[in-house]
């Protein structure tokens, strides 16, 4: 066989973030990953802050004072939005991975109808539910408290 050594052309992270004419589900995929990374970052920060309690009450109060400004309140709200989207979209993905909502194999006749069209109500419902949670969370963060 001919040994070919071509020029690397893997999209890498650009494959997640851009570089093409993507569809809606592609953006949900990217948002799911970004919110997942955001939540991971929050958990690391959370562990660092709460671990200060091990160094005494003064260290704990100093740490809490550092993360109690309005900027951190907005940050916490963003974490809540990320959580709402990631959790609900995650449930959608679990359902899809169990074959729920994607339809059965069909004979492809142009114009093709794919599983993306079949599961569209799930995707729209997940985004709407996340949006409702984000609004309710916003009221709880900034109005009711």
């Amino acid at each position: 066989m001919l040994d070919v050594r071509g020029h690397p052309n893997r999209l890498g992270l650009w494959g997640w973030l851009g570089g093409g004419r993507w569809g809606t589900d592609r953006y949900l995929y990217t948002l799911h990953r970004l919110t997942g990374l955001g939540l991971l970052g929050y958990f690391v920060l959370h562990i660092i802050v709460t671990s200060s309690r091990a160094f005494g009450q003064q260290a704990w109060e100093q740490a809490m004072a550092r993360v109690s400004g309005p900027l951190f309140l907005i940050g916490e709200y963003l974490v809540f939005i990320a959580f709402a989207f990631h959790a609900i979209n995650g449930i959608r993905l679990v359902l899809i991975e169990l074959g729920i909502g994607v339809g059965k194999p069909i004979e492809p006749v142009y114009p093709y109808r794919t599983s993306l069209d079949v599961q569209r109500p799930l995707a729209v419902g997940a985004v709407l539910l996340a949006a409702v949670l984000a609004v309710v969370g916003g009221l709880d963060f900034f109005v009711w408290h």
Partner: protein
Amino acid sequence: MPPALPGARPDFIQDIAMTNGNSEHVTYRVKHFDPDRDQAPRWQEYRIASSAGMTVLEGLWQLKETQAPGLAWRASCRMGVCGSCGMWINGKARLACNTQIAELESSFVTVAPLPNFDIVRDLVPDLTPMFDAHTVVLPFLIRSDRAEQESPTVEYHQSREELERYLQFSYCIKCGCCMAACPTFATDALYSGPMPLTQAQRYNSDSRDDGFGQRKTVLAGTAGPWRCHYAGECSRVCPKGVDPAKAIQLMKRELVLDFLRLRRHSRPTDLVEKPEGIKRRPDIPEAPARTV
């Protein structure tokens, strides 16, 4: 230009203008790479005349004949069947022969090799990793009656309903468009990708096949379907409507059911009984001698 017909779409009017001989010009922006000369790919622009119904592939031929004789790409059938001319056209993986310039709705046609594969030269991607992954998932009927498979005497039984469980996935032409569009494959070289996994599901759901157990060892590993998170881009770009995203989700369900020992294992279908007392009609010739 003829007067606009009531309710006519703008592209329809454009088509009329083109068939009347008013050809338009488009700018082709083509990615070049010569492994003997270039350190990295480079872009070059060409201006060509386009006419109604002209495909991106026909534009490339025109380029080769008039302005870029050294331009390299793969193509064969010109009718969306062979899967050779998969390219990255205006930001989307498509077949060049199956894409009309008019449908791009732009005076610029950007053509690059399919991403996520190394570039051999110009618009030619190295699809070897895809075919290697395809081989690994055992894309053929696996049965215990090997002698019958090697030298068939009759057909295997299969009902219409059983056929429809995999027919959609068997339309795959291995063009690689789904692999180029997959964001997971873009960052993860270990992932098999949509095409090989779809073909694994095609055979797993074939009632004549008994190879799920063997394929499972590959599919349950890191190369398997669990790296797919349903971006759905593979199904959106597939030029044959194969819907790889659906195949991969159905495969995940089978793997989950199998893990929970809830998957119904059915015996592969039997051979159709050979009819007795049937004579070949004289106008039907004998099959040619086997060559392999």
